[in-house]
């Protein structure tokens, strides 16, 4: 499941659905990214996607992750539009036979999503709005997998 949503979502509801009815999956790892208030420095985050293209590009990486880590399943849900502090931005879940594969695949997918996925991000704060690019740390994190 790869999905973009414009409204707030509950990562717990996604995890409930993702874990249900698995009898051969020993391990489920998840990651939830939450918009930080940064002590008032960021009031709203605005994320733009290219519908269709963005899901397809994420899908390519999801396929890589499935093969590389032998995943049984995965789910990626990403908010777009305006996101307030404390609201979840992204949820990734990975299911595998054993925990190492589930953790690594989740970590890999997040490194990709944070540094290369087709989103454009604007931070609205008290001093105005600015477009954000991935940090050097984001690029370094992604390089770990090459």
């Amino acid at each position, binding site marked *: 499941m790869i999905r973009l949503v414009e409204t707030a979502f509950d990562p717990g509801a996604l995890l409930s659905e993702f874990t249900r009815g698995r009898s051969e999956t020993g391990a489920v790892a998840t990651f939830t990214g939450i918009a930080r208030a940064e002590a008032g420095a960021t009031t709203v985050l605005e994320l733009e996607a290219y519908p269709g293209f963005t899901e397809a590009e994420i899908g390519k990486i999801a396929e890589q992750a499935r093969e590389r880590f032998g995943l049984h399943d995965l789910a990626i849900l990403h908010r777009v539009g305006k996101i307030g502090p404390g609201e979840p931005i992204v949820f990734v879940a990975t299911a595998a036979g054993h925990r190492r594969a589930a953790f690594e695949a989740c970590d890999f997918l997040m490194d990709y999503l944070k540094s290369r996925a087709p989103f454009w991000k604007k931070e609205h704060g008290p001093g105005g709005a600015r477009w*954000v690019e991935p940090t050097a740390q984001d690029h370094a994190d992604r390089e770990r997998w090459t």
Partner: protein
Amino acid sequence: MARVLLFGPLRDLAGWRERDVEAASLAALRGALAAEDAALGEALGGPGVQTAVDQALVRGDAPLSPRSEVAFLPPMSGG
């Protein structure tokens, strides 16, 4: 004729997000956009700006059909 989509900072720069433009190729489309808005024309050729025709990335020129969707994608910020 093609449907043109701008994303991220390109949209702010141009002041629009989506328009129909008369052009039979990507090169002609870029020319038409630059003729009308020089700053946008320059930005479209800027570092890291990618172009997608019908949701597939293309390099260089490409023919456009009347129903083509052309997207200009500035460097992606990740989610």
